[in-house]
């Protein structure tokens, strides 16, 4: 707004012309708090909170607040990494913990920022919506006194009567879907209300999305399950390896279904520099929801949808089949043992635990444990490495070491199924006192010393796949919000809200002077173009007077910054 403008009345008229082109809250120029006691303070605070400036600051804080979470490991994403970080940074850790830097996105301060932002948003949206409804019911404001000060302006002289011109302008503008009416000695028209509607819809959609996310967080459930080929799973809490749920989730809400992993198929790049890079992962499953079995294939990007639940393929690995016999030749363990990959070529490790049924050669009850190290593609004997060379099952080899004693599975402590607790175990040694260890091909057997039995690596290596089964309500709502947000935003940014005035006045010489002007919420090249089009259309009814009017630079010299108020 130009300070040098002195024609107060003119300015007021222009301000009125541009008023309410948007429902954006006006900035209050009053600085400092009120003197009105508690209610006054609350009102003051509320007004601050719902002002554009504070919204801007909160947006800024929101993005700033999101930064640490992307640079510091987060518990929600990777607990192991957080632990590693804590171990490596002994001095920083207490500070970070105090600042909740390991849980940024659920921290008090981050929540405070977005809750304030959304309170501000609601506080902003409600009055803006009312204002907009008011605007829709009222008529566009009358023409300012000086149309030639507006951002787009044109004029000509015509023989037509002013009333005729007004009539024609009204018809023309209405025909082009302007809201138009005659106010005083001019026609006032406005178009592009959808911009404001779009903007409001966008902000409301943001709230809808937030509500959907919050809803999803409260009622979601998510669990993991590792399944070996041929095995199945039914969706009850006890069957999960691990399970997380939102605070409002009830276990009876688990979708009743079961599925069985028929087979898993992984292929890998065989040649070139990307040798070993995975190409396809497919889990063939059959599932049922109480009725008949259906078949499906779950891929990395294609979860299986059963009711409200989705089953995602998360990871895979190998499960060699082993048979353990005691000294009398009785089979005490037979089954596929899933092993955990430790590198991209699926070098895997794990433990085989024989908990019941084993008796040593004296008939004493004991437990056996084996540490397994497995490679799907062995480098070859004498190559000096026990790491896998390729992720597919080209040359499987398993190395085992055996222990006997107490596995301590009943010690009450939760035990990692992939690790042996060797504190109460003794390692088998061979006749010469060396620790017993053997590298085995499929079909080979390692005999335990002193008639303690044997373990056989069967000619069968199964694959396992791990799945995540999640249920998250509110996704549909979030998606609807997202689509509404984009639609509203598009309307808000691409539609111009603008006003057009047409004034026709009989000049002193008896010829009618037509003036047209346009004002948009922001400057746009389209506005003058549209005004030109309208003017051409209007000249059909109000043809220019025959004699060409000399071009006179009659505009009075004035302030170089015209006060079009176009940006208000």
């Amino acid at each position: 707004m130009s300070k040098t403008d002195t024609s107060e009345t003119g300015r007021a008229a222009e301000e009125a012309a541009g008023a309410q082109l948007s429902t954006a809250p006006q900035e209050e120029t009053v600085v400092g708090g009120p003197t009105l006691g508690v209610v006054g303070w609350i009102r003051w605070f509320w007004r601050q909170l719902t002002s554009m400036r504070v919204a801007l600051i909160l947006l800024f804080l929101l993005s700033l607040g999101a930064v640490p979470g992307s640079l510091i490991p987060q518990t929600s994403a990777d607990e192991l990494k957080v632990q590693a970080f804590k171990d490596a940074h002994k001095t920083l850790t207490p500070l970070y913990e105090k600042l909740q830097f390991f849980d940024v996105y659920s921290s008090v301060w981050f929540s405070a920022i977005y809750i304030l932002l959304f309170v501000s948003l609601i506080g902003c949206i409600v009055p803006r919506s009312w204002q907009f409804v008011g605007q829709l019911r009222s008529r566009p404001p009358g023409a300012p006194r000086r149309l030639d000060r507006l951002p787009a302006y044109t004029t000509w002289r015509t023989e037509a009567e002013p009333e005729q011109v007004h009539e024609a302008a009204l018809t023309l503008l209405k025909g082009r879907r302007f809201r138009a009416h005659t106010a005083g000695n001019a026609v006032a028209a406005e178009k592009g209300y959808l911009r404001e509607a779009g903007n409001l819809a966008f902000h409301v959609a943001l709230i809808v999305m937030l509500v959907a996310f919050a809803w999803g967080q409260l009622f979601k459930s998510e669990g993991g399950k590792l399944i070996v080929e041929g095995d199945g799973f039914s969706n009850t809490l006890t069957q999960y390896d691990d399970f997380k749920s939102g605070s409002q989730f009830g276990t009876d809400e688990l979708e009743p279904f079961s599925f069985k992993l028929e087979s898993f198929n992984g292929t890998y790049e065989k040649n070139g520099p990307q040798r070993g890079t995975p190409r396809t992962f497919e889990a063939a499953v059959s599932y049922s929801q109480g009725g008949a079995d259906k078949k499906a294939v779950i891929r990395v990007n294609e979860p299986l949808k059963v009711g409200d639940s989705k089953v995602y393929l998360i990871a895979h690995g190998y499960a060699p089949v082993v048979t353990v016999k005691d000294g009398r030749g009785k089979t005490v363990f037979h089954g596929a043992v899933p092993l955990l990959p430790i590198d991209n070529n699926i070098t895997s490790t794990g433990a085989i635990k024989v908990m019941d049924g084993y008796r040593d050669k004296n008939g004493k009850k004991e437990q056996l444990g084996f540490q397994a190290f497995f490679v799907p593609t062995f480098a070859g004997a004498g190559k000096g490495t026990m790491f896998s060379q390729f992720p597919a099952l080209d040359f499987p080899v398993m190395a085992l070491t055996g222990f006997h004693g107490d596995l301590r599975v009943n010690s009450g402590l939760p035990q990692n199924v992939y690790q042996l607790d060797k504190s109460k175990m003794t390692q088998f040694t061979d006749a010469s006192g060396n620790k017993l260890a053997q590298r085995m091909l499929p079909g080979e057997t390692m005999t335990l010393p002193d008639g303690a039995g044997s373990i056989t690596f069967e000619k069968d290596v199964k694959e396992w796949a791990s799945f995540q089964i999640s249920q998250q309500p509110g996704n549909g709502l979030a998606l609807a919000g997202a689509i509404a947000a984009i639609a509203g935003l598009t309307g808000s940014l691409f539609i111009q809200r603008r006003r057009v005035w047409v004034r026709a006045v009989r000049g002193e010489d008896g010829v009618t002077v037509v003036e047209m002007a346009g004002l948009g919420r922001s400057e746009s090249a389209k506005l003058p173009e549209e005004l030109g089009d309208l003017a051409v259309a209007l000249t059909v009814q109000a043809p220019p007077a025959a004699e060409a009017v000399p071009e006179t630079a009659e505009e009075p010299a004035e302030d170089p910054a015209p006060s079009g108020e176009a940006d208000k």
Partner: protein
Amino acid sequence: MILAATTNESLARMSDLLIYSSMAVYTLAFFAHIAEWVFGSRSKVGRTAAALTQQAPAAAPAVTVQVKKAGGTTVLDKPKVVTRSAAGTRDVPDGPGAAGGTVQGDLYGRIAVSLTVLAFLVEASGVVARALSVQRAPWGNMYEFSTTFSTVAVGAYLGFLLAKKNVRWIGLPLVTTVLLDLGMAVTWLKTPSDQLVPALDSYWLWIHVSTAIFCGAVFYIGAVATLLYLFRDSYENKLATGGNPGSFARSVLERLPAAASLDKFAYRVNAAVFPLWTFTIIAGAIWAGDAWGRYWGWDAKEVWSFITWVGYAAYLHARATAGWKGRKAAYIALIAFGCFLFNYYGVNIFVSSKHSYAGV
């Protein structure tokens, strides 16, 4: 099951060759632009100072409907509409462009644009050849993102030129950046053409990554305009307050469009891609929902996309907030673009994220 389509080696080699060739042509375009600026500096234009020191702006003709006599009937031209800039902005004409109105400068400018068109065609064929060689969208790793990115940026620029927008001033900075981008792509980010890992093998790749690259390219153009706006704005401020800008500013900045025009251009560009960027993030979330079993996991890439989005939202807000229009809003736009860049280079290379692509 998709059996990995074997890489077509000769197509891949051809793609490399085309990318290198386009770099050579861009280099020529770069020198032609330099020549344009050098020859243009001989012009002595001082419109800005003239406009700013005059008490009143050159008054625009007020009566502009023209009547032509043609064969006895009156044919009406489109009435000329007088435009005025908005309150609070300076009424300054645009500079004459890099060529400064000189014939020789203009010639070199035209040569530069022609070379840019050629380089663009060569580079685009390189990208297409790469896609054909692997029979998939050419967006599997950073080398491919980078080459596509500069192709799209140049394509957008040529599109603006074709639409007769006043954007030739962006030619030199654009070609310079394209050369930097391609230089980095062929040296540090080079990845032999190959298949995708299963997580990337989805039709969402086409949707999400193409829009992301497009947004980046257009945001880049907006950022250049914003940066030049800041320079040009200080220059105009200096002139308006009777200061004496240095000779470099007088020569180079004088030839740029007026600060108000640059600002408006930057706003339009940024505002126009913002909904698409919103869409990109949502598409990414849907894909993540299918690939990883969660829509939003605050992964580093997701966080920085979000930060970029909020940054641009702040920019749009700032422009509607009293006291934040103009330079402050421009700084926010630059920060937002900085976040975009960090999301691309920083997150891909330095931060461990689920979005770690095959070979960088």
